[in-house]
């Protein structure tokens, strides 16, 4: 199976005044279609940097990244915008919903951008919010807001769903609810999914677990048996 996303020799160095900080050093990874990958690491391990580069928000200092055989390393700003628009679904730790738009409109915001989206209503039903479509963010709980964010991310049928600490701002029960939604999306739509977390327990639901420390991959393993999110506990 050809990999959807190939990362090789990726290094990222931030210059902060007089010091330079190496956030990633020589990371090489391949991601296959339909995989649910959990990227583990403590804060400062470089996982967010990796996600940002994969998501087309940042450029590596050296190394290369290609999506479906197309090189992104030297892509223009416009090309990266196009890449995010067509291929990537983002779920943020703090949901980042537009407060002046209802749940339905937040999803429509992305469905209007692409050619063959899932309808916003269907996407919201998929995350279990079929009855709260016309609520504004201020009228929704944190878990509900995160599910709207997931619906928004998947509605455009992205090839890659990137979730940055999706349960970071949520309580235990709600967090599990959100993970269930992510797992279902991956299963039912076959979207390649990357979940970043520092929460080791979440690794149990992944096909594959990659662990980062100080900007380098220290472990890359496949789970022999996947747990369903309801079986997780932390």
């Amino acid at each position, binding site marked *: 199976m050809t990999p959807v996303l190939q990362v090789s020799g990726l290094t990222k160095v931030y210059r902060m005044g007089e010091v330079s900080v190496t956030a990633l050093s020589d990371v090489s990874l391949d991601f296959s279609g339909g995989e649910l990958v959990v990227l583990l690491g403590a804060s400062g391990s470089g996982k*967010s940097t990796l996600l*940002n580069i994969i*998501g087309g*928000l*940042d450029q590596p200092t050296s190394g290369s990244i290609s999506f479906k055989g197309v090189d992104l390393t030297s892509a223009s700003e*416009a090309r990266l*915008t*196009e890449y*995010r*628009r*067509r291929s*990537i679904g*983002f779920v*943020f*730790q*703090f949901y*980042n*919903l*537009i*407060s*002046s*738009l*209802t749940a339905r*409109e937040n999803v*429509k*915001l*992305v469905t*209007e*951008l692409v050619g063959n989206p899932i309808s916003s209503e269907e996407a919201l039903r998929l995350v279990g919010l079929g009855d709260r479509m*016309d609520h*504004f*963010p*201020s009228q929704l709980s944190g878990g509900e807001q995160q599910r709207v964010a997931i619906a*928004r991310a998947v509605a*455009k049928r992205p090839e890659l769903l990137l979730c*940055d600490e999706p349960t970071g701002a949520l309580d235990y029960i709600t967090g599990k609810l959100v993970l269930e939604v992510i797992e279902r999306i991956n299963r039912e739509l076959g979207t390649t999914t990357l979940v970043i977390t520092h929460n080791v327990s979440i690794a149990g639901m992944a096909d594959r677990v990659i662990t980062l420390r100080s900007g380098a991959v220290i472990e890359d393993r496949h789970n022999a048996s996947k747990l369903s999110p309801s079986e997780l506990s932390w």
Partner: protein
Amino acid sequence: MKQLNRKLLRDLLHLKGQMFAVTAVVLCGVAVFVSMSNVKYSLEASRADYYGRYRFADVFMQVKRAPEFYREAVSRIPGVANVATRIVTDVTIDVPGLDEPATAHLVSLPGRGASSLNGVYIAEGRMPELSKTEEVVVSRPFLEANHLKPGDHIGAVINGRWKRLLIVGSGLSPEYIYEVQPGAFFPDNRRFGIFWMNRKALESALDMSGAFNDLSLTLAHGASEKEVIRRLDRMFSRYGSLGAYGRDQQISDRFIGDEIRILGMEITVLPAIFLVVAVFLLNIVLQRLVSTQREQIAVLKAMGYSDEDIGLHVLGFALVPAVGGIILGSGLGAWLGSGLLKIYGEVYNFSRLLYVFRYENAIAASLLSLGAAVGGAIAASRRAVLLPPAEAMRPEAPAVYRPGLLDRPELAGRFPVPVRIIVRNIERHPWKALLSVTMIALSIAILVSGRYTYDSVERMSEVEFGLRHREDVTVIFNNPMPPSTRFDFRSMAGVLEAEYYREEPVRLSSGYRSRRQILKGLQRADGLQRLIDAHGQPRSLPAHGLLLTTTLADILGVRPGDLLEVEFLQGSRRSMQVPVAGTIDEILGLSAYIRLDELNRMAGDGGALNAAVLKLDGTRRLKLYERFKHLPGVGGIMMLQALRASFDEMLTKSMNTSTFVLTAFACVLAFAMIYNGARITLSERARELSSLRVLGMTKREIAFILLGEQALFCIAAIPVGFLIGILLSVLLARMLSSELYRLPLVFSATNFIFAFAVLVTVAIVSGLVVGRRLLTLDLIAVLKTRE
């Protein structure tokens, strides 16, 4: 507090764009106030200084001819301090290098030992020697306009005799600060000048030995001007007195007084607009600041800073730009004021212009601006003080939105999401939106009302020179001519049309109200001279009775159909009741019209003519001018087109300056509003906009969301601004109109197009400046943290 101040400075630097906008608005308000009030007080001071040093009289009177010994009698009137008698007359002169004839207003200088009022300031050269009858001192504006200097000669027709005059000096007098030909409203320095010469020379030339025809006096402290005038009128009624009058009716003083009055009004209106905008701007900028800094404020409180410290810290954000604006504004105001005063100095002729920087005004402007700053900051400061530290530590709850206009079933789904974002934001803060629109509208209103005065004065010139007067030349006779011996202009080759009119000084009275007035007898109102109202509509002369300008009718308290007492001040001195047949809303001055034959009948003297208006054949113009220059018995010649040209030139010059200044200020105002609005939207929504960028929106798409709101405000502000501008203009027209003139209400398309274009330009520039920040939006940083 030291560290807090450091934080204040750093934050101010961070907010430099917005703080600069606030500073600029305060600066404009202070600069307008300081410059205008400096000009006002400078003009007042220069006038007082001039009047004092050159003994400007308090009461004036013109008579036909009165024996000199009356001077003694006048000085014995209780309340009279000093009396001066003079011989004054208008003559035609031939100016080297000028094709057309010009008019000199000859004024006698006091003989040796005689007391002198209305003194002459010699700017260059010297006074005429007492024995020399041909030496004259000539008013400086006339010399400058004609490139003449002491040593040059000018030819004049004095009492029918050609005389060569030698210019020995260039002078100025407080009587002619505004130097204008009798009967004209605008100065034409090329064709009208004041000539001072020895009294002996005028006495012999005009057969006025032992007599005078002009009297002026100063009043003793506490004397009643009214009583002195009453006694003068009684004393000189049989010497052809036209009635004595005070400074309030002295033409030069009236114009300068009016200018000072107008400045006094402008001092209040414009700065007030700027201060209101400053309050609003500070309010929104600081409210926003407090929300973005709630966590910092909480930490400061947790560390133990008192409410007072925090409150003052927030106030500091208002006071720093306000103080900056005050200092820069006072400096700019002082500079602008001296420049403006120079422009005034070109129209108003002072012996010396005193530039007064009134510290009281700068202090008043500073206090008002500081008040405005504190007023704008107080709400934000209160909010910071009231914030409980524990609550402030938590991020602000998501903004509450409710379904609004675009959620109506018939509109649902019709508009793309970015449009909904814009509309919802406006709906969420309707008051803020309304205020933003009003503030932008105010800048449009400043432009509209600024240009309105220009359009209005231009219309004045159009009606006056284009419609009302269609003659080329007015020839004013030295003495009234009987109709039988009238100059037969019609027989002169090159004169196409000629009309005559009569002017009689009369006193019009109704009940206790009365007014000295020239009654003008016209042959017709549809020929060369027409009667045109402020709207440009022609009016006809009533078959019988008086036609009064509306303002004059108001002053006398009469309406059409009422009877008015008309008392002739010269000749037969008859007095009779005449009906008011109608009123006409003229732009300039106060006038009373009647048919010529009726006026002749009323006067009972077989008729007389004072002046002729002529239409000339362009090709024979020069020859005719040459003839007019030597025509005996002519006291003055007015060239209409020349008057118009000099008026338009003066208008353009002063308008260019004020249009430039007003446009600059309006731009500052509009830019401050639009830029700040967009900046605040950006800081409030940077996170949302970055999220949208991450989700795949292009820069153009998020720029639309960011700037669309301001664009909507601008579009809404345009009609509102036009409306406020029109209202402001109506107010201006009311405030500025006086007995001398009334500003007609004219709104040209150019005016509105200009205001529109300025706003659009400012909006685009502001958009570009803010839009630049979208390019540097940090997509990663905003995803990390809240706020």
